[in-house]
């Protein structure tokens, strides 16, 4: 069967109730989670994770893809209506979405965002379907030297680009790598750094680590504000009329094809870069749209261009992240890291062989993504008024529910309280890292890639002990050079930003690089 025939067959499969129900449920959860300020898509996908344990892999992935797509668009609802982005990936949507609402056009603000997300996501889907297989074929030509260098490159790039300090980014990545060396070594199974504790003999399980890091890191900043002037709930804009001519809104977007395509490209590209995610994509696309615009001075006053750029890149970013995990086994962001964890629970390893070994799941992912896009529009259209009420849920109710789901997610992995203790430990570590302003993304990538970096390094050295091969093999050497360059570029960028701020404000530049 050809590529497109397989895709059509799997679209038919995912349209069966067996897969459609989790996809719809995931999309609804994603829209609500994305719209709830303080609950990110990562948090939502973590909450959905335990529900997927009793499902088959494709059902679970369909639910998670629903969350991912729904959450990416859901964030724009609150961003446009109340000026608070539901997720970091909708920050740039507030710049023009909220002014548009204040100008008396809340319906237009919401629907320009939703349809831009739909169209950006659909265009991103073309890249997902067309690029994943060739990139996976390319990755099949890689030896252990190239994989080692690719993973190091991914880690160095994330460490350099995320957060305000390159040192802290690299340190975070190093902590992630250290977490993976606890437990048995990949060749002989020798126990390392377990300190005699039995529950560490299998190493730290990835998902409890990830859930723990994100749970408290994302919830506690809200708790800090309770009773200190921060609100525990959000006022629903009840008097707003969201009715608008959908045809007119669609035309508003389609009449700006260059903006739509360019923002989509930015989104896909940022999605392909490991662990950077939609939070960077929407800002970058907004910035690009403003630079290319004939009326840059109008940005920030409530014009559709700002919303289109932000939302189309935001959803195209989902496709980019999926390309990376399916072709190389490198998560594009924390959401795909959770998906990767969910796949490994079912004994499926994402990477270059993923599509050839598991075509049903691979094409099921493509199909779920394509079906999730119109579902997202439908879910928002049907429930737009209801979602506004759901987002008024007080934090005092939401936080205990989220924590209970986190505990279930950790426990259900192996029916073991040890995983819950690991969760508790990493809750404390995650919060400590937030307070120390150390970014979490490099740590997550370090935990995901640590084992693979070590095993590829050992495989490379075992087949030829010459360490210079890491530099002399063209692709491996190129990737190592790119790693060094990415760190140097980040250092230069941070220093330049520090100097710019010092000149602008007369303040002391950021001494940390």
């Amino acid at each position, binding site marked *: 069967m050809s590529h497109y025939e397989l895709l059509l067959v799997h679209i038919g499969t995912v349209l069966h109730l067996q897969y459609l129900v989790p996809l719809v449920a995931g999309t609804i959860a994603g829209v609500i989670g994305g719209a709830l300020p303080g609950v990110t898509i990562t948090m939502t996908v973590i909450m959905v994770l*335990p*529900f997927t*344990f*009793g499902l088959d892999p494709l059902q679970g992935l369909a639910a998670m893809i629903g969350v991912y797509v729904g959450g990416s668009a859901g964030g724009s609802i609150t961003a446009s209506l109340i000026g608070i982005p539901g997720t970091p990936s909708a920050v740039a949507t507030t710049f023009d979405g909220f002014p548009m609402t204040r100008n008396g056009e809340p319906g237009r603000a919401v629907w320009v965002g939703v349809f831009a997300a739909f169209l950006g996501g659909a265009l991103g889907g073309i890249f997902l379907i067309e690029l994943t297989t060739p990139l996976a074929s390319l990755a099949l030509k890689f030896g252990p030297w190239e994989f080692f260098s690719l993973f190091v490159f991914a880690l160095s790039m994330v460490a350099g680009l995320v957060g305000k*300090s390159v*040192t*802290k980014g690299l*340190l975070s990545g*190093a902590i992630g*790598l*250290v977490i993976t*060396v606890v437990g048995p*070594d990949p*060749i*002989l199974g*020798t126990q*390392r*750094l377990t300190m005699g504790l039995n529950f560490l003999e299998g190493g730290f399980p990835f998902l409890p680590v990830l859930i723990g890091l994100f749970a408290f890191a994302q919830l*506690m900043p809200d*708790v*800090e*504000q*309770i*009773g*200190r002037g921060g609100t*525990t709930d959000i006022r629903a804009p009840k008097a707003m009329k969201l009715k608008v001519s959908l045809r007119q809104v669609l035309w508003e977007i389609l009449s700006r094809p260059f903006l739509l395509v360019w923002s989509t490209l930015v989104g896909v590209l940022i999605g392909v870069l490991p662990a950077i995610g939609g939070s960077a994509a929407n800002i970058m696309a907004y910035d690009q749209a403003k630079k290319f615009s004939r009326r840059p001075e109008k940005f920030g006053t409530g014009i559709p261009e700002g919303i289109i750029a932000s939302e189309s890149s935001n959803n195209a970013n989902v496709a980019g992240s999926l390309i990376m995990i399916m072709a190389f086994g490198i998560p594009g962001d924390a959401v795909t890291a959770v998906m990767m964890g969910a796949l490994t629970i079912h004994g499926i390893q994402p990477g270059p062989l993923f599509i050839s070994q598991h075509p049903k799941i691979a094409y099921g992912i493509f199909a779920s993504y394509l079906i999730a896009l119109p579902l997202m529009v439908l879910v928002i259209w049907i429930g737009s008024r209801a979602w506004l009420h759901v987002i008024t849920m007080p*934090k*005092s*109710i939401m*936080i*205990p*529910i989220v*924590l*209970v*789901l986190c*505990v*279930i997610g950790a*426990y*259900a992995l192996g*029916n073991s*309280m040890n995983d*819950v*203790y690991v*969760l*508790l430990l990493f809750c*404390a570590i995650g919060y400590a890292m937030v*307070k*120390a*302003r*150390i970014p979490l993304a490099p740590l997550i990538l370090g935990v995901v890639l*640590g084992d693979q970096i*070590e095993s590829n390094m*050992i495989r490379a*050295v*075992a087949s030829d*002990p010459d360490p210079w091969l890491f530099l002399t093999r063209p692709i491996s050497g190129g990737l190592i050079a790119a790693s060094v360059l990415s760190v140097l570029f980040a250092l230069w960028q941070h220093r330049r930003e520090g100097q710019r701020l010092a000149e602008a404000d007369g303040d*002391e530049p950021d*001494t*940390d*690089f």
Partner: protein
Amino acid sequence: MWRALSRDGVAGLVCLAVSLWLLLLTRGLPPAIMVPIGPAFYPRLVLSFMALLSVILIGLDLAAARRRAATAVAAPPAAETRPNYPLVLATFIVFGLYVAALPALGFRIATFLFVGALQVTLDRPRSWQRWLLVVSVAAAVTVICQLTFEDYLSVLLPRGRWSGL
């Protein structure tokens, strides 16, 4: 000198201490047998890298401390709202107690108590209607989780040693 450290310096010190301690633990690992590098090589590599970065972070923070001291007189710190750390600590304690109680009380009882206790901790009810809401939410979360996970999705939840539930 150490008093001048900000949170970056403290984070660097903690990471340095952890990395050095773990480096010491790698001394007991066996040498390489089947491959050119043994089980200790990679942990030592990443731990040394972590220690080096920690030292850099401490160094940068100490260098910044001098500049902070110079500008502190000229620019007094702006007044800002202090985060509610006692509430964060209380949340940690309630969550820690929940995790500790799970093997003894089992999921149903521990979750009911946890959801109720954390709601009260985060937003103390001031009327009987609010108390009713707290109890209802706690009961609903427990029942829905039980039905969804154990009965529908066949995902096992912790059983209590004491309660048998």
